């Protein structure tokens, strides 16, 4: 049987499946009490991650938020090291010191922060470094819709706009900041339209279809890479789960949520779009991704926790094991 999906389609779908499976494995890890803090899951937003992944180069940087697993995978962070970090293991990306909100991977120029809005200034720093060194790399700062209201967003856009730095600010607008509806607290209907206040290029896409996200994100990256200045790209999507695991979600209607879960699932959307003919092929991709992430989780759960004796290491440089 010859494949129905093109290479690009296969990659997009595979990436989404991996991101979904990764977060499902995190949910399993939580259930098994391998994670003892707050956990933010990206299910529903995979098309954004898959769309980004395509045009990110190794030298580019991505600075993400509290909801960062799929961005990490998109940037090429090793899934096992990431999962091990999320599960607080010694072999984790950050030796179990960082945890799920604070992955730092100097190898792939990927990092994140648990403070809303704080990702963007850090991305701005990368952008300045790239420009100064004459690298043609681009820095991507990720924010949610909620983060677009922060002072950090503004200050970053002001500086990037004035200096025309190679920065792409990606706003994932899932309409909610925990319980707060974007429509109720935003003075504008979209985030993208605020780009004009910064002389930035503006793009707005439906973020549940990687075939829409990928070319738009590529356009943004090309623009920034070519030295034409920052881009503000808004991707609309839907947050499937509570803000954090354990969120009682008193603030939203369960039926409406379930309806959206059905209608705006990037995986279902892509499966429907590819049609019956591709069903088997896609099923295999999905199963493979699920199996891979399950295997990773199984392996991670066997890994040792950091030894308490190292709890004081790494506050300053030169402390602790190399």
């Amino acid at each position, binding site marked *: 049987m010859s494949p129905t999906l093109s290479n690009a389609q296969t990659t997009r779908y595979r990436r989404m499946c991996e991101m979904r499976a990764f977060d499902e494995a995190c949910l399993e890890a939580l259930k098994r009490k391998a994670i*003892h*803090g*707050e956990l933010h899951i990206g299910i529903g937003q995979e098309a954004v991650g898959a769309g980004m992944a395509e045009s990110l180069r190794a030298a580019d940087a991505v600075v993400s938020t509290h909801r960062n697993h799929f961005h990490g995978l998109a940037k090429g962070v090793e899934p096992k090291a990431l999962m091990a*970090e999320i599960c*607080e*293991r*010694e072999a984790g990306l*950050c030796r*179990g*010191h*960082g*945890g*799920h*909100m*604070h992955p730092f991977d100097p190898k792939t120029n990927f990092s994140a*922060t*648990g*403070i*809303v*809005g*704080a990702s963007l200034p850090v991305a701005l720093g990368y952008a300045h470094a790239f420009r100064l060194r004459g690298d043609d790399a681009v820095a991507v700062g990720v924010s949610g819709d*909620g*983060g677009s*209201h*922060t*002072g*950090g967003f503004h200050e970053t856009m002001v500086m990037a706009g004035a200096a025309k730095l190679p920065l792409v600010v990606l706003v994932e607008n899932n309409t909610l*900041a*925990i*319980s*707060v509806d974007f429509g*109720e*607290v*935003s003075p504008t209907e979209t985030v993208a339209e605020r780009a004009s206040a910064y002389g930035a290029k503006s793009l707005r896409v439906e973020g549940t279809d990687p075939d829409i996200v990928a070319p738009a994100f590529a356009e943004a990256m090309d623009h920034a890479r070519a030295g034409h200045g920052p881009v503000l790209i808004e991707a609309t999507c839907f947050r499937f789960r509570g803000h954090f695991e354990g969120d009682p979600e*008193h*603030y939203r209607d369960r039926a409406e949520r379930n309806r959206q879960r059905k209608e705006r699932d990037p995986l279902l959307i892509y499966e429907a779009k590819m049609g019956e003919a591709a069903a088997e092929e896609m099923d295999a991709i999905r199963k493979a991704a699920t199996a891979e992430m399950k295997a990773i989780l199984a392996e991670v759960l066997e890994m040792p*926790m*950091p*030894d*308490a*004796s*190292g*709890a*004081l290491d790494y*506050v300053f440089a030169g402390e602790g094991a190399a």
Partner: protein
Amino acid sequence: MTQDRTALPLPMIISEAIGQEMARDETILAIGEDIGRAGGVFGATRGLQERFGKGRVVDAPIAEMAFTGMGVGLAQAGMRPLIEIMFVDFIGVCLEQVYNAAGKIPYMSGGRQKMPIVFKTAGGCIGSAAQHSQCLWGLFAHLPGLKVVAPCSPHDHKGLMAAALRSDDPVVFIEHKALLLRKCRDFAHGAEVPEEAYTVPIGEAAVVREGSDVTLATLSATVEHALAAAAKLAGEGLSVEVVDLRSVVPLDSDTVARSAEKTGRLLVVDEDYQSFGLSAELTLRVLDTIGHGTLKQVERLAVPDVPIPAALTLEKAVVPGKEMIVERLRKMANGA
């Protein structure tokens, strides 16, 4: 009164206090993220928006700099705002208005402008690592003009919240996330909370367990760990007096001093970072009061100046809990 109020979760007690004060005084209003429709991420403002409307219980965007500053403007306009900074860790984005404006304006205005603002926030460790686990009362306490409250018992939460809302001074009110997840009856002390409004005066420590061998002074969730440790050590013949400080500013070091003078030993336990914070200040004030060299032992146990790690194994090694307290007290008892 047939309902068992000790079955209530602590956040309900807090929202009850705020609701009673808002009903009493219509200049009180609340602004913060998720405090309205969601009733607060822990439920500590549940029901208030329905009761008092969206103008008095404002669901704010993630714009802490704006809405802490709003607190200052509201106070200047004659209102008594409660500003919620969801987690105390986020204060880095909006400390400006707290310490340069709210904390200083009464003084800068020569007493002509009061600043009745409550900055309500949650601190403490429940496993969320370096950026969501801090206490930081030591930071606020270093900055003049701010009262800093961190209660433990349900009874104190209600009374101190009422006192904070009635105070003409800015009060940083730091709840503890681990306590916010509890019901009243899960507390070892102060589980009974009257339905009617009352206040607990800000700045008075409480001896929550009497003892004769050593004084343990602490606050917030650590009081519960201390009580558990004391109960355990009682079985081993060590009698621990536990003082709940309840506020960092004003700091009731006199109550601690009296206790330490009696027991002859002092251990200050602090879930905040050890250095340049509460533990040294309290210890030194006690020593200055009762005389240096008069106590047999003076020690402190606090987070050893590291960020809070993610892994449970590491976290347990740096955040003082019951076990760590027991161990230290045993060591002290053995004269080590």
